[in-house]
């Protein structure tokens, strides 16, 4: 509002249109970052996520033992000074394995979350944009895909197709797009209702241009927030696949650590330390993504504004 009165005072550089627009965009990004980092969830999530990424990347530097080496300590030894989180049944250091284990979780969770979100966008946007037959067909396809319980399918596929990391990523990506696609479709529908979409149509723009220039920028916040929350789901699914023993058991992941622990009845035989750390790791990774995702949602799609005064 106060902008109105700032008329005429600014220098009128004629050459600087593009750079000025760039500065404005930069201002917006800075405003967003400010909003995100002053959001308690956003800050906490970023710090947690940063920590997890750091330990995963720096695992070779900070891990006290070789994670694969048998008998670096006694079998199933409780936490001690030399093995802070004890050892497993083969005498491997739990902490070292934990530090390495995050790599697979993050790799699988993030990659399949990203792929699924891209797929969901590519499917959801046209589903919401086209009003006629095309839209109805895609929507029906999405609705039908929702009928197949994703995790159940993952188990079936993993059983048939084998369990390499890339297979798991492929399966998770293939199966987790329908719910976000539906959300994106719903958001597209509501953006499409806006006059600015029709008015661009009335300017003679093609469907592809409208989807790219009018719809996409306006649903991007939803896509981002959804994508992050999708990663929470894929991280948990990856862990579950690993826990069922259907993951790549040759590689260390938090899920497979729990699988072996459960197989050896770690809890009932008193080896609780074996189970605590990996479970904690999964929960923490998921939690940090949830925090980031819901902070993004709050900053990018503020609800608060709608609950303010209904004046005039």
């Amino acid at each position: 509002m106060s902008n109105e009165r700032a008329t005429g005072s600014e220098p009128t550089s004629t050459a600087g249109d593009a750079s000025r627009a760039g500065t404005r965009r930069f201002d917006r990004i800075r405003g967003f970052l400010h909003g995100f980092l002053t959001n308690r969830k956003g800050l906490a999530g970023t710090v947690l996520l940063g920590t997890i990424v750091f330990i995963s990347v720096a695992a070779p530097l900070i891990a006290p033992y070789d994670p694969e080496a048998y008998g670096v300590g006694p079998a199933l030894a409780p936490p001690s000074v030399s093995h802070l989180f004890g050892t497993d049944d083969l005498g491997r250091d739990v902490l070292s394995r934990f530090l390495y284990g995050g790599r697979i979780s993050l790799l699988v969770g993030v990659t399949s979350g990203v792929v699924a979100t891209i797929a969901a966008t590519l499917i959801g946007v046209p589903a919401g944009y086209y009003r006629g037959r095309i839209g109805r067909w895609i929507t029906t396809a999405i609705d039908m895909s929702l009928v197949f319980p994703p995790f159940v399918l993952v188990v079936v596929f993993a059983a048939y197709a084998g369990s390499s990391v890339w297979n798991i990523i492929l399966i998770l990506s293939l199966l987790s797009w329908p719910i976000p696609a539906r959300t994106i479709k719903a958001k597209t529908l509501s953006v499409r209702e806006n006059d600015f979409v029709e008015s661009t149509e009335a300017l003679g723009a093609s469907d592809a241009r409208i989807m790219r220039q009018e719809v996409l920028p306006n649903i991007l916040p939803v896509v981002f927030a959804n994508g992050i929350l999708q990663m929470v789901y894929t991280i948990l699914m990856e862990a579950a696949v690993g826990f069922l023993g259907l993951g790549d058991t040759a590689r260390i992941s938090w899920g497979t650590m729990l699988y072996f622990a459960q197989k050896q009845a770690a809890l009932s035989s008193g080896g609780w330390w074996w189970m605590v750390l990996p479970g904690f790791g999964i929960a923490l990774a998921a939690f940090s993504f949830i925090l980031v995702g819901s902070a993004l949602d709050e900053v990018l799609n503020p609800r608060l504004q709608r609950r303010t005064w209904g004046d005039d």
Partner: protein
Amino acid sequence: MSSESAVTPGWASEEPILEVRNLEKHYVKSTGWLESFFADEKRVRAVDGVSLSIDRGEIFSVVGESGCGKTTLGKTLLRVIEPTEGEIRFKGTDLSSLSSTEMQEMREHVQIVYQDPFEALNPKRTVNGLLRQPMEIHDITSRDEQRERIYRALEDVNLLPVEDYLDRYPEELSGGQLQRVLFARALVLDPEFIVADEPSSMLDASVRARVLDLIDELRNERDISFFIITHDIGAARYLSDRIGVMYLGRIVEMGSADGIVEDPKHPYSKALIESIPSPDPREPLGSSGIGSEVPEPVDLPIGCRFHPRCPAATEHCRRADPEWRSVPSETDDGRMTECHEVEPKQQPPE
């Protein structure tokens, strides 16, 4: 249908820029095979046989209650909504026969300005981006040319100095300013014809007149013809050369702006004008004398479509469709209406 271009001298000499004949837009409610077992097909006659012609440089307003089909008419004129039936000629070209790609190219010359300035501009683009987009669509790629047109458009809508507005996002502008950005966005393509949907209804009275004056200026300086959709009869009279009164998908009366407001002939036009409050507190509140329930344009009555609400309806009105014909008026403004109860004009000997 007799020619509407034989109206008052002001525009009579000019060739029409847009001419429509018997334009119809019918919607069919409910589709699909299984539903048809359960529900009957219903036809919504949003626009039901409209013929009119707009001259170069003319401002034509269509007024009527919400649900009368005026917005649908405006959008159908430019095939933003596909007409079910009828012919649209823009400068002699039959728009209805164009392929969708040809129509997309034609849109360079005909523009729509939408009603709600807060909704009609993409919030993710700056003013500069919003104004450049139409030119990108129509392959005007030279940066200099783009700049020149953007500056000229913003100057024409009086957003000055232009530099102050280029980098603003819609959320940083007031309703009145946004409304002018909307007009500027239509202007960068140098159109000859603009449909404006309720250009002033979202604005406070204090800035409303500014937008109305802007339309008048654009007509005078850029020779643009306007088709204005509005429920604000005051604004319509203030602004336009001619007014058409629309009821349930049809134009029921058409004449000069002053003539329609001062001497309405059709009972519906009369009711509409009777109900406008004048600002003078000493004058009583207006009253339409007809019920306020607008029937839906489905299952239309036989006879005149206004008869169920018409205070002057006779048995004849319930049975026969009224004819669209010239009628005499005080101002002699080439008035046309469709009503059995209004005496037709005697054909003057040619």
